[in-house]
């Protein structure tokens, strides 16, 4: 969005002078309040992140013993020492250590991944999740919003049938869509591979062959996620469009003889899209959480299944590391949503002026 666009919106608004004034100087008080609030939320989230795993029943070594049956129970103490669970530090000392480690960027070692550093474990899974779920979310938002705007604009036409269809697809359990897609396109037609991020024998690298391979493997999971999540975006946009289309300024714009295309995109869709942007910003935060079922059905690497396994195995370090990433992502997404909204909708800034 360009500056002239903003000015245009602003000058057309009823509170033009105030808004323009607020925009001229940096709203320090507003930003300070936000910053303080986010810092507090971060602290609270990190504290919950520390205590919740410790309230779970059972212990990592018991779980390790259950998974690795060659290990003698007499060796449990040696294992506890190996895994750093033998310390008799108080909860408070552990809590202080935890924040110290976080500040140093040291997230500990993961018991379920051969005692490798948690940061490395997450780093191997996160790009795939962000790539797949991120692209899929982006695609669903764009297609859903544009489609919803059209369907809303042409209300009462045959296009309306898209709404129940996409809504139906989003209520069908995802694993079913995934399995059907595999059975039709991979097993039946043989067009696409049955899963995994890239093929056996491929060496990751920046070359055309590898990139094409990744795209080939990602197509089916991506397409199914988009199909399954399109409904919400389309329905939301279409409903907002219906509300906005009843506004007086739309009638005025049309009465002035403005081209329909301009009314649709510059006047109606532009106002209707605000809640969509808000939802999109929030969904960015959840992208890093991964999608367990996608990862399971398509054998795709990612954060979701990794966190599920970590939770089942009581791998505290990995759980904390993973949840930390999610918390940070949600907070950052919220900050972005706050700022974008403040820019797009001057009313949110007004109370501060």
């Amino acid at each position, binding site marked *: 969005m360009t500056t002239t666009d903003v000015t245009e919106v602003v000058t057309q608004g009823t509170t033009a002078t105030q808004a323009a004034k607020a925009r001229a100087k940096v709203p320090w008080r507003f930003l300070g309040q936000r910053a303080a609030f986010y810092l507090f939320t971060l602290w609270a989230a990190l504290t919950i992140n520390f205590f919740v795993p410790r309230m779970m029943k059972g212990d990592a070594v018991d779980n390790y013993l259950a998974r690795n049956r060659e290990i003698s129970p007499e060796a449990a103490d040696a294992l506890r020492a190996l895994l750093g669970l033998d310390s008799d530090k108080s909860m408070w000392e552990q809590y202080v250590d935890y924040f110290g480690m976080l500040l140093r960027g040291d997230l500990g070692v993961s018991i379920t991944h051969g005692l490798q550093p948690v940061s490395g474990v997450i780093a191997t899974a996160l790009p795939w999740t962000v790539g797949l779920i991120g692209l899929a979310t982006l695609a669903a938002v764009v297609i859903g919003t544009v489609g919803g705007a059209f369907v809303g604009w042409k209300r009462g036409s045959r296009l309306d049938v898209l709404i129940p269809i996409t809504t139906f697809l989003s209520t069908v359990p995802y694993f079913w869509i995934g399995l059907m897609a595999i059975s039709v396109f991979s097993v039946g037609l043989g067009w696409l591979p049955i899963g995994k991020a890239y093929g056996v024998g491929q060496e990751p690298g920046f070359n055309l062959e590898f990139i094409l391979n990744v795209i080939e493997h990602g197509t089916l999971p991506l397409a199914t996620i988009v199909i399954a999540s399109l409904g919400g975006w389309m329905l939301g946009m279409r409903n907002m469009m219906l509300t906005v289309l009843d506004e007086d300024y739309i009638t005025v714009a049309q009465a002035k003889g403005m081209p329909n295309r301009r009314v649709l995109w510059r006047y109606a869709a532009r106002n209707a899209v605000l809640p969509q942007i808000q939802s999109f910003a929030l969904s960015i935060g959840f992208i890093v959480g991964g999608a367990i079922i996608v990862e399971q059905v398509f*054998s795709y690497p990612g954060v979701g299944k990794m966190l599920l396994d970590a939770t089942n195995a009581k791998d505290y370090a990995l759980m904390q590391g993973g949840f930390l990433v999610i918390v940070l992502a949600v907070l950052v997404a919220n900050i972005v949503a706050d700022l974008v909204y403040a820019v797009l909708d001057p009313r949110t800034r007004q109370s501060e002026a």
Partner: protein
Amino acid sequence: MKSPMKTAAALAAAAALLLAGCSGGSGNGGATGGTNTGGSSTGGTGKGTVALTIAKPDGAITTESHNPYLGDTSASMYGYRQVMFETMALVNTADNSVVTPRLASSVEWNDDYTELTVTAREGVTWHDGKPFTIDDIVGTFDMYLDGRLTDSAALNYLGADVDGSTATLKFKDSKFVKRGSVLHVPIVPKHIWDNIDDPSTAPLTGEGEAIGTGPYTLSSWTTQAVTLKANPDWWGGELAVPELHYVSYGDNAALTTALATGDADWAQAFLPQIQKSFLEVDDANRQLITPTAGAATLFLNLTRKPFDNPALREALAWTIDRSAYVDIAREGASAVVDSVTGLGPSLQKDVIDEFAGQVYTVDIEKAKTILTDAGYTGVGTALVDPDGEKVTFSVSVPAGWSDWNTEQALLAEELKQLGIEVTIDQPDWGGWDEARQQATFGAIIHWLDGEGAWGVYDSIMGTRWIDKDKNTAQFNFGRYDNPAVDEALAAYATADSDEARLAAMTTIQKAFVKDIPAIPLGAHPLIGLFNERSYTGWPTEDNMYASADPTQAEITMVLQNLKPVS
């Protein structure tokens, strides 16, 4: 703005925690009977050109670590450590008296199993070209001595005497019940491991660190697949399969699809309806089931009603239909364990003479008589114990372990005949795990642990599994507590003669038959799913020189034996 944001953060935490709620987990092994064609082959002659893909259903394995001593490394989860690192000898899974020397050309125990004399095989080289010697075996064990390597199997190694190419490894106590654990220690090169700071956790990802003597050498590692190439200098001869790929699919369903389409060649997973989903898809598809000493066992909680009364346990033993477990719940992939001693088909030689041939059958009348004699009322309608309380209990198995979930329903149906109301409980893994450790369940179905007959009795009756301070148990979930049995278990494990072992085994078996602390149902099998499209020479039911489970150490014997289809 404030509230949606707060909600979002809270939701993220909640969503993450909810992950704990859904637990995967597949049962273990099994399907319909083998359809293997007979015929065996000897030695790998000729080289094939097709790589074999070995698959697991464990989700993406994304962290590289080739450490063979740690349970959850990529090398252990995929199982490729078995073809990279070799052991002194291989113990046959189905019959632990069959020992095949590997890196040691001979292995010999002394009478009380506290000393093992091994001779290093000649002509073996490490993957980096350096010769393998007896110092490598001793060097591997010496890492336990100074604590650089965590002694997770409690081997209590004391040191070794070296004489030429022979060494005598000495242990603090008898290793009779841990012969397999000692012989299966992966042997690693001393010239590399001397420089590794922490052998217990080292990932071996540095240049030239992932070095073994095995038939395959590490070629490439990515988060999606691991590739190993045949070692041309392997002491065991020429290998037919030039390349192995290890991959992991998201779950059993994805693995089934991969096996059916031929994307994967070899796996060890339990697939329901194997006939339809795998064997009938291609004429060359095979399944081989190898029974082991362990058995799926109904553990009864002896610490509380109703199973604190031995008469009820005996009545159950005469009521439960073990063949229904094998035929219906396991679709034929198991073997009935009906000996009164609780020992399965592969352990019949351990049954003492007194109990030879004594088996439990389904005999409802006998069960009813036992209950009536013990003072129970309402037998066959609504059972009431001698104290006047209604007899009811729950059988607990994690949701999704389909074979054992079926058995739960069978048990509930069967025990109605005695007038017992059985409730079926299918918690997630976490809830089940907690209940079994803290003995808060009624009855659970569980596997057994350890080597041979001793392992069966130790995991059902040994109190060494119970941590009294924390009130948790790693086995013996029913909390059987009999000092005489504990003593006999220890005596058997440390005995220095066959007579002493027989005496201890007699005490144990008599206690088991009298007290019925748990009810074994069917033998636990190792399963191998593979195909004969490119290679033959796989183990068969008639020639089971190894199990066909690719995650077992015996995989090197299978690979040695394969030859290309002409």
